[in-house]
């Protein structure tokens, strides 16, 4: 797997370390882990980043350790996770740098 690249649009490996070239004074990174109600991590979950109006902005698939990562902008965001174990939402007010967020999924 390669480091995140803007050459294409595919979601890069969510477990890869942040590339050294990344300027965290400019980037707003929203990252975290998806877990089930039992506390187990959920790999292969689809995590959707929705903007402050609820509009879809991006989507990634969680790593083997249930991790996800977005490069957004400062502001209010919703993270919505879909998985075969159920779905879940979390909101975050992100600032520049790394913003850690946890999302729990449960069957409705």
């Amino acid at each position, binding site marked *: 797997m390669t480091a995140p690249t803007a050459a294409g649009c*595919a979601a890069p490996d969510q477990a890869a370390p942040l590339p050294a070239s990344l300027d965290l004074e400019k980037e707003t990174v929203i990252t975290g882990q998806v877990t089930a109600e039992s506390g187990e991590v959920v790999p292969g979950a689809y995590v959707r980043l929705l903007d402050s109006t609820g509009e879809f902005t991006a*989507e990634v698939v969680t790593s083997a350790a249930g991790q996800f990562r977005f490069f957004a*902008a400062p502001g209010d965001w919703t993270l919505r996770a879909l998985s075969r174990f159920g779905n879940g939402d979390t909101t975050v007010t992100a600032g520049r740098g790394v913003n850690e967020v946890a999302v729990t999924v449960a069957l409705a």
Partner: protein
Amino acid sequence: MSRDTALVSAEWAEKNLDAPGVVFVEVDEDTSAYDTGHLAGAIKLDWKTDLQDPVRRDFVNKDQFEALLSERGIGNDDTVVLYGGNNNWFAAYAYWYFKLYGHRDVKLLDGGRKKWELDARPLVKDPVTRPATRYVAQEPDTSIRAFRDEVVAAIGTKNLVDVRSPDEYAGRLLAPAHLPQEQAQRAGHIPTALSVPWSKAANEDGTFKSDDELRKIYADAGLDDNKETIAYCRIGERSSHTWFVLQELLGHRNVKNYDGSWTEYGSLVGVPVALGDEPGEA
């Protein structure tokens, strides 16, 4: 074209995995998804290494496309069913690409990998090889592909549809938010382009919304059915998704995909750019 001819459901696909004359093709930018499990019998195409010229920024030419499909074992008479990750962005791009080179029977799997995985349908890791064919492509159909000069000329005259996220349209982001944002080109959108994010056309499981819902989305956005339409995004894959909706599901005519998209337009010298949430003036 219509939903009945252009789209297949996951149920249909699961029942037809072994059907003769049907070839399932997974299309991703990063084919590691395919390697972790794919539909039984499906082959893979790499959006970048298989479908882009390695030197120039352009498609592979007709000879290269013929060699690729022949080597992968796709025949001219096969029904090609495309699917992939990223809500079928790259599969929709490949659909448009197969149409460009005149493949007769090509379909998209509604919901792509995501719907398939959320349904917990089976994925396998077995390597797949198909006997080689002698594929013959048509000359590229440029009635569905827009180039930059045509896009500049379309400002204020044709429908321009920007299908990126609202933050990319307004110039607050330069790339989808799963990617780093540092880019060379300018931020913003083509003046007079309507903002209709591709995602409005899809349900959260990746399937397309109903024809009635889709018609309402573009009507509410102000798309004029009497005009030609050019869709664009950042590199042309999300706009393939919208091209598919407008031309293949809703049956609009004269819809083009501008695959140069923002990475080309936003780097051009001297062209107008609009910032903010409004389309702007011609």
